């Protein structure tokens, strides 16, 4: 009985297991990527297709001002929809938050985008028109905000 119990007491050789794990850790540490780089994908907004080929979908052209304000210009919305919104130009004012100096009001932008989406369910396209002095970071921020609010097709306009 005692001999049988001793047979059950099997020792695993931990040293080789530790060696294997150490090699794995070394390899993974050497090949690990610590900075996560991603991409924001946009399409060329101008050119590419002829006007006849282009399918007309409701879109906004977001013109970035030098002060941080953004003007949304409605394109291919019906007259009734435009009338409902009170015009084809919607101005997003500059944010009053201290950490968003020189940026648009994100909350107001979100409200306007969801309003447009409620008026026209096909609305998913935004074209960003920066000016030459706009900081690259702000262009990316606006794209990011549009994506956050459910805009799938983003474009950027060459100057």
């Amino acid at each position, binding site marked *: 009985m*005692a001999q049988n*119990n001793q047979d*059950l*007491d099997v020792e695993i050789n*931990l040293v080789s*297991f*530790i060696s294997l*794990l*150490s090699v*794995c*850790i070394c390899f*993974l*540490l050497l*090949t*690990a*990527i610590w*900075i*996560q*780089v*991603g*991409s*924001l*994908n*946009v*399409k*060329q907004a*101008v*050119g*590419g297709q002829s006007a006849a080929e282009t399918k007309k979908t409701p879109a906004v052209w977001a013109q970035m001002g030098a002060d941080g304000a953004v003007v949304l210009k409605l394109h291919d919305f019906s007259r009734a929809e435009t009338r409902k919104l009170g015009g084809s130009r919607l101005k997003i004012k500059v944010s009053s*938050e201290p*950490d*968003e100096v020189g*940026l648009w009001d*994100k909350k107001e932008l979100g409200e306007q985008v969801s309003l447009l989406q409620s008026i026209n369910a096909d609305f998913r396209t935004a074209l960003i028109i*920066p*000016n*030459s*002095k*706009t*900081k*690259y*970071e702000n*262009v*990316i*921020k606006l*794209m*990011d*905000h549009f*994506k*956050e609010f459910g805009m799938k097709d983003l474009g*950027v306009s*060459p*100057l």
Partner: protein
Amino acid sequence: MTNNVLEQTSMESPLLACSTLKPKGGRYLNALAATLMLTSLVDAFSILVVYLLMSYSSSGEILFISKDMVLPTASMAEDLDRQVIVKYEKGKYYVEDEELELKDLFSKLLGMRKEFQKKYPELEFENKIIIQADRNVEYGHLNTVIHAGAQAGYEEIKFAVMMGGVSS
């Protein structure tokens, strides 16, 4: 049944066993040398391996980012895949790390596209470029890259960003 496996392998505290005042435990009694707990070491190693495997990326580093360059941050960014990289850094333009004059940008991009089509006629060229620039750069400098890309037939632009930032 008193000689069972669980009792034999039950853990004893090496610290208590090493106590010179009141040592506890059988095997370690009066032994001053603390034994190494291999089981916990293996546990720690296993957790490390699992963590590193979770963050492992098979695509490797696509972009080389110099220490002076800070990419903009975006919370809605997608994974980056390998495409033609155009970099703007310190007033200079680089295509695949080759410094170029602004006037040569279009011809270089077009040349790369044509070369790919010549080399791999059965494959379709993806017509995408990755633009890499510091976050404080003015858009006007990147506009020329977008223009050159559009003229050379690159339809999609991927702006390289840092992933996962909280967008303000």
